[in-house]
């Protein structure tokens, strides 16, 4: 099997990055990129392979983060149960998956564009619920002091350890998504995306496949949510608010929802913009709070001119390079 050389280059660079990058780059830039990428990957999986644009993936991540805080340890000792990690983390993943399955079942009650509205409504409902419920979710302030377990004697919030932790999970879900997309389940899902009627006629259970896709897609989002909670050591309603839910959509669309790598490219662009655009905006003479304007305009530009995101631009470039300059038709490059 021939492996695309880009994989070797990207893999090598990412593995040796801690040798020369600063802690800030490792922990903030790349850690955050991988986390956002995982959550966006979850959206990309549903949207790209299943044709279902779910805005509730950030909420799935939030649920997982909250569950780790509630079942595991946090500074809010009244609520947190303090169970060991090998109980709390699987439990968090399971509950997040159940939540996603229920969301998928609800969103699939109607067809097409309703999905995005129903999932947006679900995301918002849970944001307000987290915000106003003090008994379980500790309301507006949420949980702080949520730390990763000291497994193998490693402090996983150390920048290098955290970098490798997020890199590992990002890579795992990336290859997992590619594997599932080529599995019989993934192929059936893509068939359903393209023509649900024909797939139903072929004997596939359309609804079951769609709901199962939500369940599968819950895992990258849930792991992303747990890592996000550990990264900032806290989770609050704002983590899984409406803004972040839409940001995940922006990340996935900017990167391109045709291929899993788009989620991570989009996340990288978003993180870089979010970190450095402020300097640029101030340089232009606007206040630093105009970040969302920039993101919004950038997002608009992408959906207006390149609906397939950066990946779409790349494809265009490849195609135009493959054109024979004399005939303006596709042909072998010399």
């Amino acid at each position: 099997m021939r492996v695309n050389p880009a994989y070797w280059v990207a893999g090598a660079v990412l593995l040796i990055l801690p040798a020369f990058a600063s802690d800030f780059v490792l922990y903030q830039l790349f850690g955050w990129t991988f986390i956002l990428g995982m959550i966006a990957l979850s959206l990309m999986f549903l949207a790209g392979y299943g044709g279902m644009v779910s805005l509730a993936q950030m909420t799935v991540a939030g649920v997982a983060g909250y569950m780790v805080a509630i079942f595991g340890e946090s500074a809010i000792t009244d609520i947190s149960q303090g169970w060991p990690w090998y109980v709390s983390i699987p439990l968090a993943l399971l509950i997040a998956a159940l939540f996603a399955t229920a969301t998928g079942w609800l969103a699939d009650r109607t067809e097409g564009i309703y999905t995005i509205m129903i999932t947006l409504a679900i995301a918002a409902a849970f944001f307000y619920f987290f915000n106003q419920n003090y008994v379980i979710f500790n309301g507006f302030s949420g949980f702080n002091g949520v730390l990763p377990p000291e497994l193998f004697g490693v402090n996983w919030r150390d920048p290098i350890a955290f970098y490798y932790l997020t890199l590992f999970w990002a890579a795992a879900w990336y290859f997992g998504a590619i594997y599932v997309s080529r599995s019989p389940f993934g192929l059936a899902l893509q068939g359903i995306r393209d023509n649900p009627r024909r797939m139903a006629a072929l004997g596939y259970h359309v609804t079951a496949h769609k709901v199962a896709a939500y369940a599968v897609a819950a895992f990258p989002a849930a792991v992303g949510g747990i890592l996000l909670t550990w990264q900032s050591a806290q989770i609050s309603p704002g983590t899984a608010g409406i803004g972040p839910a839409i940001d995940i959509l922006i990340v996935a669309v900017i990167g391109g929802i045709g291929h899993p790598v788009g989620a991570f490219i989009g996340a990288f662009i978003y993180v870089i913009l979010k970190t450095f655009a402020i300097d640029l905006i101030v340089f232009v003479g606007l206040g630093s709070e105009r970040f969302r304007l920039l993101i919004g305009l950038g997002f608009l530009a992408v959906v207006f001119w390149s609906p397939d995101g950066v990946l779409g631009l790349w494809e265009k470039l490849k195609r135009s390079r493959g054109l024979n300059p004399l005939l303006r038709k596709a042909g072998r490059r010399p």
Partner: protein
Amino acid sequence: MRRFAENHPWWLAAIATAAAILLYLIFAIWPDWLVQMLGKKKVFLNALFNGITLGALYFLVASGFTLIFGLMRNVNLAHGSLYLLGAYIGYSVAGWTGYWLLAFPAAFLIVGLFGIVLQVFVFRRMERQDLRQTLVTIGISIVLADIMLWVFGGDFLNIIPPTWLSGPMETILVTGVKRSSGDLIYLKYPLIRIVIFLASVAIGVAMWTLLNRTRIGMLIRAGVDDREMLSATGVRIQLVFAGVFAFGAGLAGIAGVVGGTFQSIAPGEDVRFLLASLVVVIVGGMGSITGAALGAVLIGISEQFGSVYFPTYSVVVTFMIMVLVLAFRPQGLLGRS
């Protein structure tokens, strides 16, 4: 109505019982056991009427949304931004001219014009690309939200109604009996809310008449059913589209002024009202004006009762209504499958 009674006798019985109980709760003087169970009647009545007026506001926002969706299949996720835009325009105009009533036509016209711009430059360019429309409108709402934050700041603003509309009004409803003298205590309710409720009902009835009794309404209904056929009969459908879009957007603008008067204007309200209209039309049924009215009142009341009787779970009540409707009647209460 008669067909409904024949087909669903049990449903009818349930609805009639609920209505009777509700009427009893509103008009009767509550006996002690009821007060013990539900708390003071005044709280109950206030929650009920606040819910209905909130529902009226939701109806104003959601009817435009559902009309646009029903006719053009355009999912306009910038609808909440149109609401907020109307609110800020109303605030500026009312503050500038000093006339509260001027805020309404100003908001309607400007937001309506903005709606035409949206329809022509965004939706017409990407017809039948649902996802792209949704994404573009999300982008537009982000940009608009930030521009409005930039221009008007992040403070809570209030449109001040004229003095002849402020203050409470005595109603004919009894909340209790004075223990000392045996006099009846009547409910006092803010006049502005009553006026706003009546105005929303008037707008709703006018819309219903327009849709069901006029030629333009006929064109719109035909367009909802089959727009290709309508355009094949020679109707300039793009004009109808632009008109309906402007009207729906203008309604959102008016709703903004209303909301700015009896609630407050602040960044984030756009999202709140977008979600309210989403939930309302999901519950009521996409594309149905009557459904929007029913859904709006239902959601408004449940939100108010939730916040009075179960404060930390009030969102759950609203959410459960949506879940139940989706589970048992995915096309919405009055939607057509």
